[in-house]
């Protein structure tokens, strides 16, 4: 396959990327406007209730809070484009450094959750297809749907109650830090990982089941059956590859959720990730950090969605080999 702009696939990828970037700029404006509208004042929040007017005025001048909004927007977005996330207003430290460790923690948790949840969901989906409409299928559907129906904080608290407080198997707080032994890290994230898995499992499992069932009625599956192949082999080798595109979409969407939607889970388990960082800085009105974190979340979300789109198209042979 030669790569040229006339190739619709390459065109499509380029178009999607450009659109994604435009979307990101639009989001940057929204984020900036949103943080401008927050009530309160960063200097007041840093010094707390016990701030004196002199101390407040000194701090405000030092932070450049007296400049007009549009000047600050262009300074900020210009810096972003050059990879400079700026410095935190409240602590004066470099935001990129601050976010780097938190982001890697969030990705660590999301990664392990995905590693558990995705194969499990697909496997359960296949089992459900194999025993479709039987007891096992209904049981899998019912339990996963029950798990998704419960709010995640409730699942988290239930797990803490049983696994941390009553049986004392896992810690209730998932604080991980650099230099912590790997096994300790795994124990620490066991409960938040389980919570996230329970939350995203049903969606992916149901989609896998539906997508595979859809192709199970195709003539080539019938042929495979007539050839005498084992039912699992049919599902795994013949049905699954042809059902992959909707499955990829839903898997990637759930992965995006695992990265950007875990604020609640991070707070419950006191996990030092991006969610906590964001909450801390919102309450302190530390706008540059909130903006940077918001933009990073947006970028991850847009990227993963784009990735899902492109993968779905690539998985479709009609688009891959245009006439």
């Amino acid at each position, binding site marked *: 396959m030669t790569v040229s702009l006339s190739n619709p696939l390459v065109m499509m990828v380029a178009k999607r990327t450009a659109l994604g970037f435009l979307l990101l700029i639009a989001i940057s404006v929204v984020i900036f406007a949103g943080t401008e509208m*927050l*009530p*309160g*004042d960063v200097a*007041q*929040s*840093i*010094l*707390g*209730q*016990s*701030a*004196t*007017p*002199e*101390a407040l005025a*000194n*701090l405000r001048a030092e932070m450049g809070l007296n400049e007009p909004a549009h000047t600050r927007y262009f300074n900020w977005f210009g810096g972003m484009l050059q990879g400079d996330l700026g410095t*935190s207003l*409240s*602590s*004066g430290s470099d935001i990129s450094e*601050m976010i780097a460790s938190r982001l890697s923690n969030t990705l660590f948790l999301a990664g392990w959750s995905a590693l558990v949840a995705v194969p499990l969901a697909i496997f359960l989906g296949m089992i459900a297809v194999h025993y479709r409409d039987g007891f096992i299928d209904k049981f899998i559907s019912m339990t996963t749907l029950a798990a998704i129906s419960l709010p995640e904080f409730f699942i988290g*608290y239930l797990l*803490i*109650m049983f696994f*941390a*407080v009553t049986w*004392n198997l896992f*810690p*209730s*707080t998932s*604080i991980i*830090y650099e230099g912590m032994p790997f096994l300790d890290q795994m124990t620490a994230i066991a409960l938040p990982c389980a919570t996230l898995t329970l939350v995203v499992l049903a969606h992916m499992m149901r989609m896998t089941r539906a997508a595979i069932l859809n192709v199970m009625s195709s003539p080539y599956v019938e042929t495979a059956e007539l050839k005498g192949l084992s039912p699992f082999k049919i599902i795994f080798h013949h049905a699954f590859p042809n059902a992959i595109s909707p499955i990829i979409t839903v898997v990637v969407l759930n992965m995006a959720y695992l990265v950007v939607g875990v604020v609640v889970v991070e*707070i*419950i*388990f*006191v996990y*030092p990730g991006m969610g*906590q*960082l964001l909450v*801390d*800085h919102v*309450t*302190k009105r*530390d706008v540059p950090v909130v903006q940077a974190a918001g933009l990073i979340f947006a970028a991850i979300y847009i990227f993963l969605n784009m990735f899902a789109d492109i993968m779905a198209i690539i998985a479709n042979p009609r688009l891959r080999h245009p006439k």
Partner: protein
Amino acid sequence: MSDKLKQLSKEVAKGRMSRRDFLGMAGTLGVALPFASSLLSQSVMAAGPKKGGNLVLGLVGGSATDSLDPALNASQVPFHFGYCWAETLVETSPIDGSVTPHLAESFEAEPGAKVWHFHLRKGVTFHNGKELVADDVVKTLQRHSGEETKSGALGIMRGIEKVEAAGQYEVVVTLKSGNADLPYLMSDYHLVIQPGGGFDKPDAGIGTGPYQVEVAEHGIRYMGKKYAGYWNDSVGHADTVEILVLNDQTARMSALQSGRVHMINRVDPKTAKLLARMPKINIENTSGRGHYPFLMHCDKAPFDNLDLRLAMKNAIDREALVKRVLHGYGSVGNDFPINKAYDLFPTDIKQRVYDPDRAAHHYKKSGHSGPVVLRVSDAAFSGAVDAAVLYQQQAAKAGIKIEVKREPSDGYWSNVWNVQPFSASYWSGRPTQDGMYTVGYKSDADWNDTKWFRPKFDKLLIQARVELDQGLRADLYREMGQMVHDDGGAIIPMFNDYIDGVSEQVQGYIKDPAAELSNGHSLIRCWLA
């Protein structure tokens, strides 16, 4: 039988038996609980602290935006950790609230209380090995009082004219006007002594405290390792101390229950009784100086009318609020910001009680009509909205209509408190009566949050400040308390307790009315059994 019990109490002190089992055993032996309890604490103290181990605290009040710079300390976590790695010139006693020497071995005032001499303890070293000398103290105090400082202690430093070293081990503090309470101010948690005053690197985390800073991940976790050259043997028993930032109430509770942490702060009054029932956990509640006021601005209509203020003060059922909002973990307030936790507390000011008839009488006299708007948010204190609604019901019985307006928690301290004429607030109290009145009730105070301007009160305050005769001073404070009680704009229905959760493994816990968890000293005062 008593011998047997004594022996058992020693077992508890050594950590071979749990406190709960001991008390149960005492009960079966037919010994009254208070006696058994006191026997127990005697044995624990007599056995002496046990050294070693890792003592862990789970705290609300930390965030990624915190700093090790003591000048910027504003929330609980830096407050607690600060006492691990750094120290102040003097401290306050948990027993009677008096000032006790610390880094300063002794101190005295020249007549008039305008010039103070602090004599430093010799041979104290910072974690970098440098000896503590007068210059470090002078520079530290200067850093907190410069024009450009962002220090939270600026307010109390403003009365200081100059600070000088007199030789290696003496510091002379000269005030603009006399203040008999200056030593109390020096116990403020911002004013920990740093080498060279911390001018070159304010957040270096180097002090004279019992623990060296090992880990400071703001908003996540702190760790301190025992400093080998530490001077004071009576504190700092564990080998390492650790603070986990657990801002979520449930996370804090479950961490204590599962044994991940040994102590937590701010147990929710709603669940404190349930937690106390758990095995291996004790609830320690300390009545402190913190209080939950409703503040009326005396310079704005309708609260510029004394009768309306009195109507509002008589229309609140304090007992009910302590019972329902604080769940009993607190005490009734009397519309002036001082309680028995303060030195020279005036006991003879008559307690105001819920009196709808009197409230109705004053209300009628005030000539006011229509609803009174009360602005609240749970940012003021946990349960503020509930308290306001209860107050609304109580006042309705006196024919006073209160409109409770819920404000967003975000920005409450900048948009509502000290701005709106009637709002809920929280005051943590100050070490002395002078301190409390100076920051909150003097006419020119920054947080004169009742906008109460009384030159006579200011005069009394300054008079009391330089009065070294305790009897005369007590009289002055009585008169001032009465003035605020009768005329002021603060409705103070309750003083809250600090409610800490402490594991049975922890010993040496001392209640300190100055602040939660033994005034932030729990990590250095306590030890693990």
